[in-house]
């Protein structure tokens, strides 16, 4: 061939070359698809990473750092400080108050009491209240008020100036005897001052009540009660615990016996005595402390064991339930005999001092927040700042040790989220979710277990309802129904699948629940009759002579089956009240007359609750959300079974049902399983229906007539009100994490199962 020919015929090879445009499109589309795919994977992992990032701080514990030691006079016996810890003060054994600047140790103020010949024999400070109590040698008590005045100079610099005001001494103890210890507390009605003295080696506790009345001119008038003796029956007094509310009193004896008293308006009445370490060789209590909230006490013993006792309602022999002290936790054993228990402010943490070691422990969960070395000298007092970001300790060698605390989630731990926890005031350990309440002293409870339970419960109810319907419908539609009807039913089901769940939830909560509520028995009858009715219809049908049966084309049987079923259901619905009257008649608790009411019957016979928005309603409506999904996927799988297998089976003399059961279903099983699993996933993650159709109470019981709260509904309901970064907020994210994990595990299992089944039943 000549070259000129080639030129004459422009590029004869061109019909084989691929146009640049095709290649470029190909390349570009390849890239776009890759970016999309990678993007999806990244998005999923990003979500997971975000969740973990949100949840991680819950499990990091506390960070405690020493921020210096302040040298104070060696005779310091108590201390206090301002809000910022800038100018702490110590009270010396002689009653002198010395303020020192934290940053350089310089003295800011020295205040000397004028006692008129008396001496100071006892000192107690209440740093948070700015109160100092001096017990005097004649049984009187003098209260000092410490106030820090902030002022700002022209440059806007803050200067803090402490002042001390001495109040008139008050005779609390028996005159002439020195006060050995002094306490102060304040109930809503009155203030209480308590002193310990000794008469011939025997302890004497005397208290005075101060009632403040606002006078006409707005001037407060304080009336002082006569001194009264408390706990006169206590054989020995090693330690006195007086809650800041003054409503009870605990006297710890030298032998380890705890005697408790309760404020009865006049004085303190004996309540209960117990020995926490009665099973130990040495029952002595080496340290004890009242935890914030004034309901629980931590006791430590000689060998470092810890017990936490709390007041909670207990059933008495006479059948009444009374608030009594009882042990709620065994703390982890400390390194040595406990030397001090100091409660934090605002939460349930406490600092335990033992064998040269400091441990910051959460009382409720028992989790160790932090652990560190104790300072050299014996610690005599520890005070936490009100917002739990600092604590300060005074040691006997005249040093004030100061630490900062970073612990955003003191109440969190694995056991708090997943374990059974005995909360203060509860009668037993329980899984509880209760994230907020009215009072400040309320302890938030973040157990995810009831939410798991609710999730699983809701899912099971939904699947119990949905799976039989969806799967039998899929089998029927794919194998028995005529194709014309199938073509109608499939799109209808798909539309049903796209119904927003908020609409379903709305229908469930506002329409279905109230509708079903009074006619529950009718509903049960109507639903219960369907299966036997369908079965007996089948039986009747097979009993009919061939000639009659031939009249109905195969696949058209539903034309007479449906009216038959509807009739049965209607009859059962109508018979409902009669059934209810026959089976569920109980005595009305209000009027005493017999009434036929299933709800009342349920409450009375099972002792369980009955909510009108209950699990059945949720299961029913959630079932509606699940049915179309399961149906669509299962139906696809079933109708994809090759016809050759069906004819093969029929030709071998199998009935249609045998064919379906032993050939079609096994062949389609992997598709059916994925349908079920996707339905499961949908039910687990379903939110709006549960939010709207239940009372959202995080209860844990299998009672079908109680509500539930699911993980997802919990997030939807509470996230808007959770403070960002707060434990509550992160606990919700932890719930989301669990949900993620749950669906991940289930989907993975489902996929593995599906692959296995597919391997086993793969079709040629």
């Amino acid at each position, binding site marked *: 061939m000549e070259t000129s020919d080639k030129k004459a015929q422009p590029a004869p090879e061109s019909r084989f070359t691929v146009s640049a445009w095709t290649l470029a499109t190909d390349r570009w589309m390849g890239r776009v698809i890759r970016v999309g795919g990678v993007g999806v994977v990244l998005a999923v992992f990003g979500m997971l990473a975000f969740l973990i990032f949100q949840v991680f701080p819950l499990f990091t514990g506390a960070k405690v750092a020493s921020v210096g030691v302040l040298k104070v006079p060696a005779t310091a016996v108590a201390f206090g400080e301002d809000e910022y810890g800038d100018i702490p003060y110590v009270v010396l054994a002689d009653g002198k108050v010395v303020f020192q600047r934290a940053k350089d140790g310089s003295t800011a103020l020295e205040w000397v009491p004028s006692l008129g010949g008396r001496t100071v024999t006892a000192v107690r400070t209440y740093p948070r209240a700015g109160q100092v109590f001096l017990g005097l040698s004649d049984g009187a008590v003098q209260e000092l008020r410490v106030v820090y005045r902030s002022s700002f100079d022209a440059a806007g610099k803050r200067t803090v100036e402490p002042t001390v005001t001495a109040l008139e001494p008050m005779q609390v103890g028996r005159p002439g005897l020195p006060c050995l210890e002094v306490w102060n507390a304040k109930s809503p009605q009155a203030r209480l001052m308590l002193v310990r003295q000794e008469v011939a080696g025997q302890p004497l506790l005397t208290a005075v009540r101060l009632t403040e009345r606002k006078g006409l001119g707005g001037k407060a008038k304080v009336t002082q009660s006569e001194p009264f003796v408390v706990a006169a029956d206590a054989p020995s007094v090693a330690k006195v615990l007086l809650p800041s509310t003054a409503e009870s009193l605990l006297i710890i004896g030298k032998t380890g016996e705890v005697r408790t008293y309760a404020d009865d308006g006049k004085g303190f009445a004996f309540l209960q005595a117990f020995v926490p370490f009665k099973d130990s060789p040495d029952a002595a209590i080496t340290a004890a402390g009242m935890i914030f909230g004034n309901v629980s006490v931590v006791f430590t013993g000689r060998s470092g064991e810890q017990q936490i006792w709390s007041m909670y309602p207990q059933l008495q022999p006479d059948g009444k339930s009374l608030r009594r002290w009882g042990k709620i936790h065994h703390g982890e054993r400390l390194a040595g005999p406990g030397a001090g228990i100091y409660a934090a402010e605002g939460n349930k943490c406490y600092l335990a001092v033992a064998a040269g070691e400091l441990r910051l422990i959460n009382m409720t969960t028992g989790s160790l927040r932090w652990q560190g070395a104790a300072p050299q000298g014996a610690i005599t007092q520890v005070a936490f700042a009100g917002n739990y970001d600092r604590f300060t300790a005074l040691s006997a060698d005249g040093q004030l040790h100061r630490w900062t605390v970073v612990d955003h989630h003191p109440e969190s731990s694995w056991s708090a989220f997943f374990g059974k926890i005995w909360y203060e005031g509860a009668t037993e350990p329980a899984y509880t979710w209760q994230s907020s309440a009215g009072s400040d002293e309320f302890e938030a409870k973040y157990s995810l277990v009831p939410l798991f339970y609710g999730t699983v419960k809701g899912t099971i109810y939904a699947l119990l309802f949905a799976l039989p319907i969806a799967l039998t419908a899929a089998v029927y539609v794919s194998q028995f129904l*005529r194709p014309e009807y199938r073509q109608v039913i499939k799109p209808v089901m798909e539309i049903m699948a796209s119904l927003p769940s908020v609409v379903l939830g709305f229908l469930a909560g506002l329409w279905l629940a109230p509708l079903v509520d009074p006619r529950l028995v009718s509903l049960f009858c109507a639903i219960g009759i369907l299966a036997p009715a369908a079965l007996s219809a089948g039986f009747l049908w097979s009993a009919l*002579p*061939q*000639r009659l049966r*031939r009249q109905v*084309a*195969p696949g058209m049987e539903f034309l007479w089956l449906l009216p038959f079923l509807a009739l049965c259901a209607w009859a059962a619905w109508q018979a409902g009240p009669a059934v209810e009257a026959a089976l569920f008649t109980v005595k009305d608790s209000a009027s005493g007359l017999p009434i036929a009411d299933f709800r009342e019957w349920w409450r009375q016979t099972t002792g369980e609750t009955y909510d009108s928005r209950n699990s059945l309603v949720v299961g029913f409506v959630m079932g509606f959300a699940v049915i179309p999904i399961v149906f669509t996927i299962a139906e696809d799988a079933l109708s994809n079974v*090759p016809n*050759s*297998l069906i*004819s*093969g*089976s*029929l*030709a*071998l*003399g*199998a*009935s249609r049902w*045998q064919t379906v059961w*032993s*050939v079609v279903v*096994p*062949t389609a099983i992997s598709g059916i399983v994925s349908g079920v699993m996707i339905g499961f996933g949908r039910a687990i993650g379903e939110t709006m229906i549960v939010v709207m159709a239940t009372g959202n109470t995080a209860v844990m019981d299998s009672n079908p007539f109680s509500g539930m709260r699911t993980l997802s509904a919990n997030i939807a309901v509470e996230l808007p009100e959770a403070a960002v970064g707060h434990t509550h907020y992160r606990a919700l994210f932890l719930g989301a994490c669990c949900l993620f994990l749950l669906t991940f595990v289930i989907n993975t299992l489902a996929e593995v199962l599906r692959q296995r089944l597919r391997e*086993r*039943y*793969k*079709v*040629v």
Partner: protein
Amino acid sequence: MPATMNPATSRIQVRPSAEREGRKDYISIRDYGFWYGQKKALDAISLDIPERQVVAFIGPSGCGKSTLLRNLNRMNDLVDGISHEGDITINGRSIYDPGLEVISLRRRVGMVFQKSNPFPKSIYENVVFALRVMGVRDRSILDEACETSLRKAALWDEVKDRLQDSALGLSGGQMQRLCIARAIANRPEILLMDEPCSALDPIATGKIEELIHELKEQFTIVIVTHSMQQAARVSDRTAFFYLGKQIEYDTTEKIFMNPSQAQTEAYISGRFG
């Protein structure tokens, strides 16, 4: 195309057979017509099939061979809008007898399909399927039936060590023999085969043909085939159909050596089809 005899015809060897005569008619089809909706697929078919013989249905595509075959065990019942005239009797009883359950008819009349269709189950379960749906639970009966049918289907030696393996791991020829074993496991009387070898290679085809020859001892076999050679090799009698009509039905020898109809001759000599 020359009107002389096609070389193909001369290659067809008809197996001489002595046992062809003297068998009583077992299936008889009388004036049988069949419609798919408005479309008449079979017209005035009348033929008798003797017991324990092999009858081949031949004819060009779409002439109704499969339709007739599938009517013998009423596999067409599931098709919409079918109707028929005339009658088919098996052993004297009409298959349309209202008292006759289709299922029992199908237990009597086994079928092997054009494309092998083993179930996605083990080899064993495939073979005993018919027994299982009949309600046989006894393991020893099932085992025995499995072995005998696989032996009859000449598959036993190949699969006896892997009965619990999936049937889908077999080769095409093995699968088809498995389908035959499956069809004979509940000992039907009649075996219908719709082009059982059309998807198989010559060696597998040969095996199946041998098998048909042996099965004839026990079963009445109706086979649809596209291969003239196959019809000649395996069958005792041959029916030729054209456009839904039965053109000629006679002994295979007669059909292939000396057909009485010109259309038959034209078809077997390969002039159309």
